[in-house]
């Protein structure tokens, strides 16, 4: 009895070690994707997206402060959600189109803490990448932030809430939330670029089709990968942190975990 409980323990520890290793090993690949690069939006659009983005960032800071005040003990899970987004957005994963792109990992935190809190964490990731890796940029942070740190978490949160009520299956809801939020963020990025650079004949629509074509197919397998990894994280949370999840009211109905 003792032996098999040991085996079980090492099994799950091994799984954690493996994922951690995979996350580290898979990352260094110079080609990257997804953000609108520095200076690649005309001044008007860059400013406009900043103006749209800022109220959400303000709301996010307020929500984060409230969360920490009400449930100071939830800051460990907050760090976990942030770390997950941090890791996933550093992984440039090859895709079926022969180019690379990366997931975001924003959905998990959005389902745990709500979309506003994730705006702050997502912005932090974007800022890190813009300042240190020349990935994305400060002028385009408004646009990138709006797509990846505002709309994506709201889509994730909405999908999760809706599907969980509908299907009573947390795993499915979590998977769909991650996949959809990823795809929506990319489509929105394509749309932002299309608005700024309409095609001379076909206008915004044709331009959008062209930008979306770059991302769309590349993104589908990555979105699925992100969905799977998000469910995996959810399973570990349900295994190890039930008390904390109780506080966040994350658990309810059937779960993907037995």
């Amino acid at each position, binding site marked *: 009895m003792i032996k098999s409980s040991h085996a079980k323990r090492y099994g799950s520890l091994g799984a954690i070690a493996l994922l951690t290793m995979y996350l580290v090993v898979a990352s260094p690949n110079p080609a990257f994707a997804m953000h609108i690069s520095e200076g690649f939006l005309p001044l008007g659009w860059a400013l406009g997206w900043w103006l749209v983005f800022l109220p959400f960032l303000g709301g996010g800071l307020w929500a984060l402060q409230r969360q920490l005040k009400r449930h100071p003990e939830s800051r460990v899970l907050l760090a976990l959600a942030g770390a997950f987004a941090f890791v996933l957005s550093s992984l440039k994963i090859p895709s079926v189109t*022969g180019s690379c792109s990366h997931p975001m990992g924003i959905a998990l935190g959005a389902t745990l803490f709500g979309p506003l809190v994730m705006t702050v964490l997502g912005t932090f990731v974007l800022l890190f990448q813009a300042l240190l890796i020349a990935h994305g940029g400060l002028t385009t942070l408004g646009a990138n932030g709006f797509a990846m740190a505002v709309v994506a978490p709201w889509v994730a949160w909405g999908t999760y809430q809706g599907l969980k009520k509908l299907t009573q299956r947390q795993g499915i809801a979590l998977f769909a939330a991650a996949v959809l939020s990823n795809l929506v963020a990319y489509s929105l990025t394509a749309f932002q670029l299309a608005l700024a650079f309409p095609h001379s004949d076909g206008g915004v629509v044709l331009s959008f089709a062209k930008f979306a074509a770059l991302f769309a197919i590349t993104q589908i397998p990555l979105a699925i990968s992100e969905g799977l990894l998000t469910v995996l994280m959810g399973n570990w949370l349900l295994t190890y942190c039930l008390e904390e999840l109780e506080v966040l009211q994350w658990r309810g109905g059937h779960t993907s975990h037995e």
Partner: protein
Amino acid sequence: MSKGQKTNWLLLGGVALLVAWPLLFVKGDFEGADAQAGELVKELSPDYTPWAEPVFEPASSEIESLLFALQAALGAGTIGFIFGGYHERRRQQRQTSTSTTSKEPLP
């Protein structure tokens, strides 16, 4: 192996397959999709010149991958540390609860 563990391994396997498949069967240079987006911008409006430069640009792709690896390591390290802590907490809780309640026999 419990059902939950099996699910977790299947999830990891799925991700590994999704990553390995294009590398094995797709011929491509695997460049980033935003480099391609930049090219498309030039095609759509040839007159456009980016009006801002990144504040800091890694000196080479090696340095860039170092920073990306740093980002991944920080995140993964945090995740491992937190789950490690929770793992130990659960183990201790189980140990104290086995002494009071009867535990179902493990196979």
